[in-house]
């Protein structure tokens, strides 16, 4: 074996070249992976931004519609519409009261919702926003802290 390498030293060079190429390939793969992850992250970040904008726009639209509905059903608007439809305010002597078994007088509104309470704390764990270098740095700092 040794003899074979002695008579053909280019084998050693080929081995070096092979190792170097392997390293290049590995580096290229890591770079490609990194590029892929980075691009995916960027796309996801952009999508999150767009979704957030959509949420904000939806909330604004909902709020606008809610207020518009309140304007359309305001006391003045409803009275105007009622009069236009031929209604008139009832006179006290025209009111008839009927006893309805089980009738319960309307109670004030309850605006409680079944949805979960809004979150006000940040909840993303560090694994999702730490880079490898950040993680290494943290480990080093932590290990120093223990010493």
């Amino acid at each position: 074996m040794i003899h074979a390498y002695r008579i053909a030293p280019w084998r050693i060079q080929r081995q070096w070249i092979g190792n170097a190429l392997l390293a290049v390939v590995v580096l290229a793969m890591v770079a490609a992976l990194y590029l892929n992850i980075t691009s995916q992250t960027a796309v996801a970040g952009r999508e999150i931004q767009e979704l957030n904008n959509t949420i904000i726009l939806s909330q604004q639209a909902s709020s606008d519609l809610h207020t518009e509905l309140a304007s359309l059903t305001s006391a003045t608007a409803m009275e105007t519409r009622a009069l236009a439809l031929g209604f008139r305010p009832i006179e006290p002597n025209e009111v008839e009261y009927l006893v309805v078994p089980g009738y319960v007088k309307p109670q004030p509104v309850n605006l409680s919702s079944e949805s979960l309470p809004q979150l006000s704390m940040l909840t993303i764990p560090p694994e999702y926003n730490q880079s490898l270098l950040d993680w290494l740095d943290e480990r080093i700092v932590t290990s120093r802290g223990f010493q």
Partner: protein
Amino acid sequence: MRQQYALRSQVLAGVMAFVALAIIVQMTRIQNSVEADVFRQQSENYAYELKTFYPNRGEIYDRNGRLLAGQTTVYEIGVDLRNVRDAHAIAFAISRELEMNYDEILGVLNDPPEGIAYMVIADFVEAQKALNLQSLKKALQDQAPSGSYGGLTGLQFNAHPQRSYPENTLASNIIGFVNREGKGYFGVEENYDNLLAGNSMQVLIPADPNKAFEIPKVPDGTTLILTINRDLQAAAEKLLDESLGEYGAREGVIVIMDPRNGELLAVATSRRMDLNKFWNYNTIYDNATDFNPPISKTYEPGSVLKVLTMAAALDSGTVTPNTTYLDTGSILIGGVTIQNWDRNPWGVQNMLGCLQHSLNVCMVSITSQMGANTFYGYMDSFGFGHLSNVDLAGESAGRLKVPGDSDWYPVDLGTNSFGQGVAVTPIQMLAAVSAVANDGRMVTPHVLYAMVRDGRQYNVPPQYAGSPISEATARTLNEMLAISLEAEASEALVPGYRIAGKTGTAEIPVNGFYSSFETNASFIGWGPADEPQFMIYVWLEKPTTSPWGSETAAPVFSEMAQKTVILLNIPPDNIRQQLRALK
């Protein structure tokens, strides 16, 4: 030959190794240089952006879930000066759509202030106008040749919420308003400003796209549900407007409260403001007390205060309903002669007659017997001279002079007994008289029914302000007031319902003397007398058709009470008693 190549290769490898080493050394040197710290600091400064997230202001509803204050989207319209392609087009479009001066806009665009990249042209622009401009910008961009820019390139639109009041002027005195800086003024908006505004949140957002971050969900400001009944409020405001015209009064107030728990159901004032145009405040109101007179404007209440004088006399044992006295038409107190409202003697009267005919001489007589300490002790317990603690901004405490004050004279004991020489607010009168309607317990008037936060509703329990009189005294006086109205055939009576109440006519001091022509006419009443569910206070300032409360405020009370029983679904007494018997 091979050795020569080997040598060359080794030299080349050595050179490359040296270069690589030099690069590493240089990198290490740069990393640890003095300048590196500066650059590192700069990079950290740009690594994160501190962003503040503002919560949406809480909404305001009436007790039946009608929106009284919400949000609407408006736009900030600005120009990114680096991207402006056609300043003329931008100036022309904005001047046409927003009715602004073309030359001014063009001047600013052509010669912007030094060192700015973005300039706000207009803020709080209505959504429709902003959308028109956005459509125009898009159309011009679409028409532009491929690869070039549209005429409105550089024009930017930023949407943000603005407070909106869908009922416009309705209950403006209760709600108050929010200015463009987001600060609440008057009414609920000021009193609960911190709750409604919520808490903003500051978050560091990384510039590195690889670092995930969570946009905080900032909780909205607290939503408030008021005790106000929108339809009753609208009816009260409409009736008040009609009454001012009918009786020639300058100003007026109608307040409706549930005497059992202090919930204010309607607070109508004659001066109201479209809250969506709050900048008109100065043209509508002369001073801050005009915004919500029921809580901030003091006046001499006149004979409605006799209810409380009689309550004190009965509760202290000074008189009973059957106690009699001889009314000679005048009485001397503190060196001053006090006369009845008609300046006539009424002969022998008991306490029922005293209330029924609203006799000043009677009141002076019983307060003289009661003594100043007892009388003022009761008035203090009824809350005069103190804030009622109503949850609306701008409340006034009024003024009750007491023995020992530099400006108190013995005659004040007499005049105070029939409501002159004492300054109160309508809300104080309601709070005090609620003790009579509510079995001796005085309520704290309030407008907040519930708060909604994080999807949960928290109802506000009623608060009581003590028991200045006993339950027996309250019931006795309640009955006396109901009988006196019936016996008088008062214009305040409500068909089908037994009502208790009292009129008031107070002379207004003009240049240091009381005027017989300018009066404050008022009426306070509640019903149904045996189970009070509403208490109404009417105050008409300087009515011109008649100075008397019995001829102006009393009929307004009756009409308001008739609307109230319909809107609150309170059946007539006979039906209500039948229903009670069935239970």
